[in-house]
């Protein structure tokens, strides 16, 4: 009996023992579960990226038609005075015939179709084109009477045809296009008149209406987002850091500061739309700031970002070893000197990371902006700051939301493209955070 007991306890250190086997199995199981969890995460990310990229990458290319257009003085300036006021009286409808005439000329040169097909040919070109012409002429009336080469947007359907969204079969059923039109487009492509190239306008053009997705761009949204980020950064970084330093290093610990601490933690968890309601009630209804303005969006997002920054900053300050504070105080530095000379520089990477994560959150925030009217259809660029802060603008995530509501399938591509732009911005911001952290990081 005794011998056996000795034998089993002796075996407890061996690999073959039942308990050891069980422990090893548990470790293996846990590792497997962890790997599975990571794999699921990676798969989800890949799926997301694949769907967005496959939908959205095409928005960075756009089909254009190059036409030489004679800016007919008989149409544009009947009095011949070149008076901008007179020229401005000609609406975009007045410019449409010029484009049509130019197209007909191209058709005659190539011996395609007749006068009757001209309407079909005009539909190749975006409804935005006359406006582009008009803006060009208004900007420089001296060009009237000249023949100028324009790169005009092809209509959304034609663009879609070259991106695989529209086919001959679907065109058959489509009121907005026809197989003949597509065939004509193919012919123009062969002649080098119709080209697909990189779409700068996507980044610079303002939003466009439902019927002209080809003209819709992110210009106003990017500007609006940039303005808001500027406001958020300028307000939330100093306020957040100052509040954190005071709370962490100087404030007495009592019931009042405890209350503030609980409130900050809770604020970080408040749904963002609540901040939108607050912005609407306070900044727009009480203070009287304009709707849809980046200043209101910036203020609302600042309120939203502050708790994030404060929590991150306090964590960073707490992570600085107390021995550093003691060391500074020990050589006769004041509390403020010890904080600003030693603690703050050491906490800087953490503070910057927190700030950038807060900014990234704010950049992607949609709900509160809907409530303060930033979902409006804005075609005019906001002015340069600071006046521009009060002009109506859109924002990147709101633009995405906006485009997903539209009927034309071309907007699906636009929305995905906008998401890619947003993701790139976020990626760059996170990259900056990582670089800053690396650069400032110090050992102690």
């Amino acid at each position, binding site marked *: 009996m005794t011998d056996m007991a000795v034998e089993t306890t002796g075996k407890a250190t061996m690999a073959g023992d039942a308990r050891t086997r069980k422990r090893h199995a548990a470790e293996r199981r846990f590792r497997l579960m962890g790997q599975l969890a990571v794999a699921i995460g990676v798969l989800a990310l890949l799926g997301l990226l694949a769907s967005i990229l496959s939908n959205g990458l095409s928005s960075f290319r756009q089909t254009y038609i190059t036409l030489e257009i004679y800016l007919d003085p008989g149409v544009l300036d009947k009095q011949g005075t070149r008076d901008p006021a007179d020229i401005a009286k000609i609406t975009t409808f007045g410019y449409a015939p010029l484009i049509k005439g130019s197209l007909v000329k191209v058709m005659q040169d190539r011996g395609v179709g007749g006068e009757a097909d001209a309407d079909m040919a005009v539909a190749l070109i975006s409804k935005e084109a006359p406006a582009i012409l008009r803006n060009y002429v208004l900007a420089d009336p001296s060009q009237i009477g000249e023949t100028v080469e324009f790169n005009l947007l092809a209509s959304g359907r034609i663009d879609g045809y070259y991106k695989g969204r529209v086919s001959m079969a679907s065109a058959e059923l489509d009121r907005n296009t026809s197989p003949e039109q597509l065939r004509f487009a193919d012919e123009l492509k062969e002649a080098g008149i119709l080209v697909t190239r990189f779409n700068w306008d996507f980044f610079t053009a303002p939003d466009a209406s439902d019927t002209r997705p080809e003209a819709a761009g992110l210009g106003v949204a990017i500007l609006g987002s940039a303005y808001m980020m500027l406001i958020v950064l300028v307000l939330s970084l100093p306020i957040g850091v100052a509040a954190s330093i005071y709370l962490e290093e100087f404030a*007495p*610990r009592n019931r009042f500061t405890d209350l503030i601490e609980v409130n900050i933690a809770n604020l970080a968890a408040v749904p963002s739309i609540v901040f939108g309601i607050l912005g609407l009630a306070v900044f727009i209804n009480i203070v009287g700031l304009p709707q849809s303005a980046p200043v209101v969006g910036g203020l609302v997002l600042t309120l939203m970002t502050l708790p994030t920054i404060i929590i991150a900053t306090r964590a960073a300050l707490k992570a600085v*070893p107390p*021995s*550093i*504070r*003691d*060391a*500074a*105080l*020990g*050589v*006769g*530095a*004041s509390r403020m*000197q010890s904080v600003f*000379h*030693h603690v703050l520089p*050491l906490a800087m990477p953490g503070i910057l990371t927190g700030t950038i994560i807060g900014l990234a959150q704010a950049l992607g925030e949609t709900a509160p902006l809907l409530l303060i009217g930033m979902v409006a259809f804005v075609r005019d660029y906001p002015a340069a700051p600071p006046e521009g802060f009060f002009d109506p603008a859109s924002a990147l995530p709101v633009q995405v939301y906006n485009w997903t509501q539209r009927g034309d399938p071309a907007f699906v591509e636009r929305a995905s493209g906008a998401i890619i732009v947003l993701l790139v911005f976020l990626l760059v911001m996170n990259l900056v955070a990582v670089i800053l952290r690396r650069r400032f990081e*110090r*050992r*102690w």
Partner: protein
Amino acid sequence: MNVLTEAATEKALVKKMNEINYKMVGQDVSVYYGDKRALFDVNLGVRDNTVTALIGPSGCGKSTFLRCLNRMNDTIQSAKVTGRITLDGQDIHDPSIDVVELRARVGMVFQKPNPFPKSIYENVAYGPRIHGLARSKPDMDQIVESSLQKAGLWNEVKDRLNEAGTGLSGGQQQRLCIARAVAVSPEVILMDEPCSALDPIATARVEELIHELRANYSIVIVTHSMQQAARVSQRTAMFHLGHLVEEDDTDKMFTNPNDQRTQDYIMGRFG
């Protein structure tokens, strides 16, 4: 009986204080951490150009007393200090005394070497800079060099003053901390178990240094090592449970202490 002896020793102490040059004197010093009392009416003087060792078992209040001397306890919100502590006869809790000024005069070296994560030069130069002790760059170089020399570190680091102070070995870091404390020309240097994180060789180096520093500074050192107290100090104070048990010449304390508790502690019967 106990009260009587305490009163008697206090009387004797007051008498003695009038004869000897005391740099710092604590009278009836008590410290409370919240509701907990950590120090009970301690009367203890720090003599000029003398190393005073504070010994006693863990939690006996010796570090607490040390931190009273340059008001480091101010940084602990729950701590409350009562009684009177004077530096050259001036009450350090007097509203007219700037605590920053006090800490420049009463420097401190901590248990764990805690150099700033900056260069060796910057570590030493920081104190003089914030106190405006150097008028020019050569001035500052001079202060840095002499401080490092006083700390016995100059020869080891003179070629790499711009390297990080945190890259030095533990013993070197502690001597750098001593150089940093010396750089602001304090009158008193407080050392809170300065060798507890060091190996025996580094410890010997620091002890040697304490000997040398004694010529110019009053030093108060908290230590857990009886041998260290015996080696470096001229006066020893024994603390127990927040009370000052006794204070006397180190030689006498280690050979013929008055109090049984001191005897027991030194003999290693508790603590």
